[in-house]
């Protein structure tokens, strides 16, 4: 560590020191330090007009190009039902339905969806008039803390449509036949939605209920 140049900020030293493998990279510490202390040019934010159709309502926004669809929904339209979990496409909490397809709203830019139709958990149903999938999650206790639930429900609605549309999955036996409406298919297709409380079994029961019985 004492070989690191004095130019490093305290924070950068802490970052380097906190990594368990730091010792193994000492031969490259010079280059590494250069990377850490190198100039980080600041660039001015670029603003762009974006029109989103969210849950049937059109919104004209002026957004920094960096704004993800997730942040546009949460921070600009205040639709906070869609959750930010990992912000890297690994957890599925941010799942929304865009032009009929479920996607991770954290891994796409709002500006790439100018004019697109977005459905969030708020658009599926309301507390008074719940979507059948929302009602089934309540009935079957398809959650504990509830943080992943909006993403789980948006995904679940889309999963049943994908099976109906004949889209194959990793567990589809015969690729030339239509995929089965089975628990195995649902489990595989829901793998992009993580639930740290582990409500998976009840989530499958809720989807089973809406599907009218899974094989």
């Amino acid at each position, binding site marked *: 560590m004492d070989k690191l140049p004095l130019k490093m900020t305290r924070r950068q030293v802490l*970052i*380097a020191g906190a*990594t368990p*493998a*730091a010792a*193994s*990279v000492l*031969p*490259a510490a010079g*280059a*590494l330090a250069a*990377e*850490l202390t190198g100039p980080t040019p600041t*660039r*001015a*934010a*670029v603003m*762009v007009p974006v029109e989103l159709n969210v849950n049937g309502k059109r919104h004209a926004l002026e957004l*920094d*190009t*960096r704004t*993800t669809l997730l942040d546009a929904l949460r921070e600009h339209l205040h639709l906070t039902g869609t959750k930010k979990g990992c*912000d*890297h*496409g690994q957890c*599925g909490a941010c*799942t929304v339905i865009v032009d009929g*397809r*479920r*996607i*991770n709203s954290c*891994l*796409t*830019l709002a*500006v*790439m969806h100018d004019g697109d139709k977005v459905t969030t958990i708020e658009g599926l149903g309301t507390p008074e008039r719940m979507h059948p999938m929302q009602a089934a999650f309540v009935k079957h206790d398809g959650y504990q803390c509830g943080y992943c639930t909006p993403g789980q429900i948006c*995904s679940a609605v*889309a*999963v049943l449509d*994908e099976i109906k*549309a*004949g*889209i*194959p*999955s*990793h567990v*589809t036996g015969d*690729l*030339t036949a239509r995929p089965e409406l089975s628990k195995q298919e649902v*489990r*595989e*297709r829901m*793998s*992009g*939605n993580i639930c740290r409380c582990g409500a998976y079994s009840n989530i499958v029961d809720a989807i089973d209920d809406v599907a009218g019985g899974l094989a």
Partner: protein
Amino acid sequence: MKAFAYQRASSPAEAAAAVARTPGAKFIAGGTNLLDLMKLEIETPAQLIDVNGLDLDTISKTDDGGLRIGALVRNTDLAADARVRKDYAVLSRALVSGASGQLRNRATTAGNLLQRTRCPYFYDSNQACNKRHPGSGCAALQGFSRHNAIVGASDACIATHPSDMAVAMRVLDASVETVSPSGQQRVIPIADLHRLPGATPHIETTLQPGELITAVTLPKPVGGQHFYRKVRDRASYAFALVSVAAIVQSDGSGRIAAGGVAHKPWRVEAADAALPRGAKAAAAALLQGAKTTHDNAFKPALIERTIASVLVEAGSQA
């Protein structure tokens, strides 16, 4: 994320020219890998050229009985295409074994080919990585290397290419069609698209600056039984430890390629030739010269067993 300018491309050649003339410009299609890396400031483009509006999202027949897959065809749509499911099942199988439903709905054919490694040291900007920061060293060599390469690697880099789709395309002898900034088109055999790391692991493909992939073509169907067997730490939604794409004919001949073992989809002519002699012979030919780390010494045996399981299912000699 660093600020960037954003522009929609109106034609493939114009997109290529825009990226070539603008320092720090990059194409964006699905964005599922690029935005992930931009959030970590591993990628810091000054301008994004959005190619999503280009007319490159269809699958059509080629004159020689094959298929042309537009660069923007989403992974879900490619996997679900009736012609792919019937005649190129290895490709459908590989696609649905990768990522999650949400990601496959966004990820494109060309973007899948060009995705970056998931080596943890490439992703951690506090660590040395010759791919992310040329000349800084490779922390993976002595680090956590369970997922790293065992063939075709170098002292500078042991990263793997993470794609499943590309392994299937390699076994199918696909070709990649591109357009250059000057509007010139060329065809690259998929075997020549990805580079081995050597001393320059940051140069990952043979594409020129600004060159845009417009399509991937598959030769006419070769028949046989198609397999894509992926072995991973979770039952779903995880990158491969190893994977095997195989097409096995009724006489026991066939072709194999492996994923999770190299900087590119790994296929060796001698392994195809050895396939009728069984998994041991095929694996030995495929992994000739393999060099493992303390963490991934299990991979050669796992490749052999994965080939064996494919051959058992094919009904030929394991």
